[in-house]
């Protein structure tokens, strides 16, 4: 056993070293920089909580945070429920469902930047497809400038991101549904539970852990992975109205050379995401213990 432990330790040592050097170390350094002022070339100057005070006093940062909250609302709830519905349909007896399941994976084959370009040509006011389509179906009054003003531009960006988020939720829920014991489903059928009732009362509660996973992944997406889509579609504009924290962090760090400010925003972003993940985990454990 002792030699086994040594063996395990020696195998784990190198990856742990990697993670320490390339992940934990930079996190600590970035946290330190969030209390400093640095432009990548001059000396690093300790300024205390000055950068954090600016986060709560500069309207640009507050606007970005507000946009992030809108993103969280947009990419957590809607994709979850649409994905659940799709997964429920695909979990049943459906001819050719392998085709539909395969189609669910297609959005992941498209890079976020390509997706952004595609949706720019959907939402564009002059050249886009959406406005003419609305005209064609008699909803011409709903034509809008989808990308040129807030909050419509943020909502349009969220709608574009649903192209990937909905399949992701559907695939995770589908995996969850296949793990539900067959006996439970059969028993619910015997008890007369069908369709939406079975989904709400039997299946959804059993998918609790998967729902938590989806929630955390979608929150992470709202804070990190939407950068490419937003950059290509609006660059955070016009007049910075569609900026989210990761766009502001990029501009502060690499365009304005404000490493301290960017690190403070990154720290805040990390605290929010960690807080939400821990909160969700805690709630999940509480529900488990109660149940």
């Amino acid at each position: 056993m002792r030699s086994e432990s040594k063996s395990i330790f020696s195998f784990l040592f190198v990856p742990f070293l990697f993670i320490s050097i390339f992940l934990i170390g930079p996190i600590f350094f970035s946290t330190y920089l969030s209390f400093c002022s640095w432009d990548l070339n001059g000396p690093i100057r300790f300024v205390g909580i000055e950068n954090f005070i600016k986060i709560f006093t500069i309207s640009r940062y507050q606007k970005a945070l507000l946009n992030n909250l809108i993103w969280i609302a947009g990419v957590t709830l809607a994709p979850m429920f649409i994905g659940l519905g799709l997964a429920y349909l695909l979990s049943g007896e459906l001819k050719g469902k392998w085709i539909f399941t395969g189609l669910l994976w297609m959005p992941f084959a498209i890079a976020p930047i390509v997706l952004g370009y595609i949706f720019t040509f959907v939402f564009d006011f002059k050249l886009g497809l959406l406005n003419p389509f609305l005209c064609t179906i008699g909803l011409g009054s709903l034509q809008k400038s989808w990308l040129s003003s807030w909050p419509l531009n943020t909502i349009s960006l969220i709608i574009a991101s649903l192209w990937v988020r909905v399949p992701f939720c559907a695939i995770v829920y589908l995996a969850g549904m296949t793990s539900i014991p067959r006996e439970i489903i059969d028993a619910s059928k015997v008890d007369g539970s069908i369709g939406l009732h079975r989904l709400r009362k039997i299946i959804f509660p059993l998918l609790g852990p998967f729902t938590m996973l989806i929630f955390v992944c979608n929150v992470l997406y709202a804070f990190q992975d939407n950068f490419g889509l937003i950059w290509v579609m609006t660059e955070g504009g016009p007049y910075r109205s569609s900026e989210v924290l990761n766009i502001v962090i990029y501009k502060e760090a690499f365009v304005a050379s404000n490493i301290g400010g960017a690190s403070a925003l990154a720290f805040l972003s990390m605290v929010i995401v960690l807080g939400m993940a821990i909160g969700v985990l805690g709630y999940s454990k509480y529900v488990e213990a109660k149940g």
Partner: protein
Amino acid sequence: MSTRRKIMNMVKKVQGVCNSITVTIIIAATIVAGLSVGYGTIPACAQEPVTLEFWCDKVGYITMYEDIFEDFTDETGIKIVATGFYDIEGYIGTIKTLIGKPEAPDVFTWWTGKTMEELANTGGLMDLSFAFDANPGAEAVKDVMTVEGVVVAVPQQVSIWAVTYNKSVFKEVGIEPPETWDEFLELCRKIKEAGITPFGGGWDSWQGFIWPGELVPRIDPDYYELLNAGKASYTDPQMKQAAQIIIEMAENGYFGDPNYVLTLASPTEVPTSIRILASGEAAMIYYGDWISGFLTKEGFTDWGMFCLPNVNPALEKQSVISEPAPFLANKATKHPEEVRKFFEWWMSPETIMKWCRIMNWTPWNVNCSKEFLPPEILNFHKSVEERNPRYLLRYWEAAPTKEFDVRGMLISAAQEILVHPEKLDTLLAGVQESNKSYWEKYGFK
């Protein structure tokens, strides 16, 4: 424990240790190999001839750069690989992160003014005074390429900003290039009445600075210079007047639909603006006279240029915005001798002539002839000289940046007033707050 079992246990222990050591060696070897390839420690026999890396933010010029650089390769055997960046903010961020390191490009385009000072202060730029010393005749532009006594740049273009107009549209509407501000507004009104958008070109991305940067110097050029020296405020009446003019022009539809011009799908690149001009959809576009190169490339010949008149008729001199665009060199280049050869070649009158012929640009060396320039450019320059010009550095170069990003804030404010004019005072106050913070930290000059 039996002997056999003892031996088996020993073998297992050694095996476990051996496995660990093997895995560690494989991982370490992979890292070393990767770093070696990345940092160019490949064997000499596998190395290619010297190739210089050239980066630029002007994607539309790439083919022209490649054409002219072929001459350098033919003369010296040194290859140049040109890479264009579509996204200006990404380009700025990349250069600022890499400058002074071997990973930065050997030669790259940049901007003069405070943007160049910021880069020069990193200590990562090569001294290029040798290029001027080797090629007399360009002394007039040396000052603007110098930061704190060190020549850190050479020109690739020296231009002034102009309104480029579609001659057929002007003829159709029955108008001539204006001499006064009132004539200019009347011209815009007539064009709009004829169902044509007066100005093509977008407002999104970097372009938001164009109109504030052109109007303020034409209202009060002294204020403009004081503003960029930190001695005036963005809330002063002159800036407000410029903003009000923009709001009125936008409300009259002179810039096109804000729902379109405020998106990335609108012309953020010059060739698209030219196509809108050439099609007659717009009557005018506003860029530097360097646009003549693009006009030639797009095959549009029915154009003219005029200088936007002063807003304030009491000004003695015509305010004219100049844009000297430079090449810079990375001090940490792996090929300093080759880079030196490049700049000596670039600044030679022969190369300047050839480059300016390709681009229809004005040569910046007095030993170069200007006779090849299209008559429209020659007429435009002549008309500018006749108006007793006062040259002022373009706002993009002159404005404060760094972490306060005053320039970015003004661009953002100029875009927002197109759709939210009621926010004018708040927006200008926000820009001034950043401006004040910048000058408090970095001092006045």
